[in-house]
């Protein structure tokens, strides 16, 4: 299952059928039902000063720089001795842009951004409400900065689990259960949360009033796996770890592109169905979901590859998907139904699907730990190259003959 406040959006059929708008609606419901007067947050904002894109020469505090190549949901600008992170929803360009000023600790607040939150860098402590945020820190070798998480249950990273066991991490809950008092008492350098950009500013009024910066990570608005993973650059900028991220992320991106070239060039393109239905509804990823991108790059034939949905996933009727499933070569991501017996217990009709007959069902739950938390949603977000290799190995074993599956496993 997805983790704490699972990146709701364009995961599409990845998780339990989880449509974007509805889940973001649900998310806002959870996050925002206590919010006061968020309408005011949408007052007209001054547009970004033009100079943000023209950094003054020789910034003294910058320890290297990084540029954003794939992600469309945020931009990172180096201005003088500080950095500006602008988070925007690429699907609603007219929506509010949320800005964060990353200022060296102790330096004065730069002029010109009246609404921006100031975050002092480098961070010394971080609270990540979603397990994906733990993965970001882990990727940058900064697990020890994680002092709080939304829920212990959903953390997989070994180093953070050790720290939890040692009592060095606190649990702050999420949504309406967010423990503001605990957060104010510990006063971390940053709380990272999931949400719609431009909507979440006032959800955290209490924390902001107490001087605890809250950053919205909306990595899930991205339409490709690499763009999603690139959000690690936000944390890298916060930690002044640009050189680390350049090296590590570029390695991931290069490997991903190499594998994608293999997959796209594959002679045969096996057909794939994704996800499980619930009664009459079968949510499948639409063309803009990163899952569809994975499938394109893994050399799969995906029936809804070109179908656009307003919400990132298509809510189809069982009958609309069944003809495809009947003749598909593979069935991926059966969610909580981890065995063939469990699949057939939910609906005996699945027995007629070709992937079930030929034992070609694969689920992304190999790295599920003792608490039932699935690392696919955590470290997987940072390792699209490994996920793509898994998919290539499943769909085209001849292309990666020596590969061992790391996130997927056959459903038996």
């Amino acid at each position, binding site marked *: 299952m*997805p983790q704490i406040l*699972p990146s709701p959006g364009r995961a599409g059929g990845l998780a339990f059928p989880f449509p974007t708008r509805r889940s973001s609606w*649900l*998310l806002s419901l959870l996050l925002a039902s206590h919010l006061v007067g968020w309408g005011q947050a949408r007052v007209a904002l001054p547009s970004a000063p033009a100079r943000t894109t023209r950094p003054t020469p020789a910034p003294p505090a910058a320890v290297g720089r990084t540029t954003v190549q794939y992600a469309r949901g945020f931009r990172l600008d180096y201005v003088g001795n500080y950095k500006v992170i602008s988070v925007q929803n690429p699907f609603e360009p007219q929506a509010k842009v949320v800005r964060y000023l990353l200022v060296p600790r102790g330096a004065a607040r730069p002029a010109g951004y009246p609404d921006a939150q100031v975050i002092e860098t480098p961070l010394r402590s971080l609270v990540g409400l979603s397990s994906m945020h733990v993965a970001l820190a882990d990727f940058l070798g900064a697990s020890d900065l994680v002092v709080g998480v939304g829920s212990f249950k959903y953390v997989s990273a070994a180093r953070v689990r050790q720290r939890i066991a040692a009592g060095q991490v606190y649990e702050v809950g999420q949504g309406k259960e967010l423990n503001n008092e605990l957060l104010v008492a510990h006063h971390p350098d940053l709380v990272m949360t999931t949400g719609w950009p431009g909507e979440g500013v006032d959800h955290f009024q209490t924390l902001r009033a107490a001087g605890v910066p809250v950053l919205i990570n909306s990595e899930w608005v991205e339409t490709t796996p690499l763009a999603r993973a690139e959000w690690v650059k936000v944390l890298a900028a916060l930690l002044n770890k640009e050189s680390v991220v350049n090296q590590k992320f570029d390695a991931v991106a290069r490997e991903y592109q190499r594998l994608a070239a293999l997959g796209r060039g594959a002679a045969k393109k096996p057909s794939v169905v994704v996800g499980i239905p619930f*009664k009459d509804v079968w949510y499948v990823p639409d063309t803009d979901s990163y899952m569809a991108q994975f499938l394109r790059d893994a050399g799969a034939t995906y029936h809804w590859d070109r179908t656009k949905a307003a919400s990132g996933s298509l809510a*189809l009727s*069982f*009958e609309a998907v069944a003809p495809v499933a009947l003749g598909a070569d593979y069935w991926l991501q059966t969610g909580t139904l981890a065995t063939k017996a469990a699949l057939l217990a939910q609906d005996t*009709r699945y027995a*007629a699907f070709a992937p079930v007959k030929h034992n070609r069902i694969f689920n992304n739950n190999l790295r599920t730990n003792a608490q039932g938390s699935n690392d696919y949603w955590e470290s997987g977000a940072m390792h699209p190259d490994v996920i793509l290799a898994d998919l290539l190995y499943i769909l085209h074993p001849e292309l990666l003959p020596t590969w061992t599956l790391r996130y997927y496993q056959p459903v038996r």
Partner: protein
Amino acid sequence: MSPASPAPSSPVPVGARRPRLATGLLLLTLLVLVAFVLDVALGPVRIPVLTVARHLLGFGDAADTTTAFIVHQIRLPKALTALAVGSGLAVSGLQMQTLFRNPLAGPSALGLTAGAGLGVALVMLTSGSMASASAIRQLGFSGSWLLVLAATAGAALVMALVLALAARVRDNVVLLIVGLMVASVTGAIVSLWQYFSAPEQIQEYLLWTFGALGGVTGPHLAVLATVVGLGLGLALASAKPLNALLLGENYARSLGLRVRRSRTLIILSTSLLAGSITAFCGPIGFVGIAVPHLTRALLGTADHRLLLPGACLLGAALVLACDCLAQLPGSQLTLPINVVTSLLGAPVVLWVVLRRPVRSAA
């Protein structure tokens, strides 16, 4: 009560009644047949009606396994489920309206639907964190059977409570209040669980509350059909007591009716119908309240020996028609059945109610 006694305020002359009622029931039967055929013929995948018919009659092209699968595994079970759901909910609604002498009563009046919802919420929202749910899993129930079992258990629990109270409480209004309070308490418990659940669990529960006719196949369908059949049988057997109850409990008692026994029979029948349908298909609103009114208006009688089969047929036709529309002709999407029944059903009832004076339910 003599068999042919007309309803006291009947505007129709006695002589004209019989043929009209017979025609009405015949028309309703035809309506059900047409709706059934339409429901099987229509769907997101376009299949010519003749091809569907051939597959239904067993003359289908054996090589065309996809069409065979769609007709036999998806559409036919769904249409049969719609049939059971429509007739069961309509009849249980009629029984509740007469028993409680309240035109707003429905299958949910006894708190049964809420009880079933509680059972489902127990499985979906507390899985892992509650010992009871995992204990049920250990018994070997998994997947959809687990949900059905939980919903049935929830409904049965509430039914047992209501039956126990029914034995003590003389006043039906008190019983109605008990049902409403039970629904309120279970609703609060479910809300509490939702509050502490992860979003994806809430999503799963929300999907259940939308109601669905699909996914009830094979052994599930057999169980649903059997239980609904049993409930309908009990309901038909209670036609005469229902007629007597229309005149008030005291008058019924003076007619020699054993009110308490009849009441138990009626509650049992409704529990079986509403409990099993909610367990398999989720809470489907509106049908239970509206169809009895429509039936009274269409047949112009208060005699339950005719009203019961009438509501049965009309309910089935209505749910089948709603299911046709839920498929959104020409689209790959399906709307939740619960939305369609209310969205389309309410205007229909308004039209019928406003067009002609409807006899009071009681």
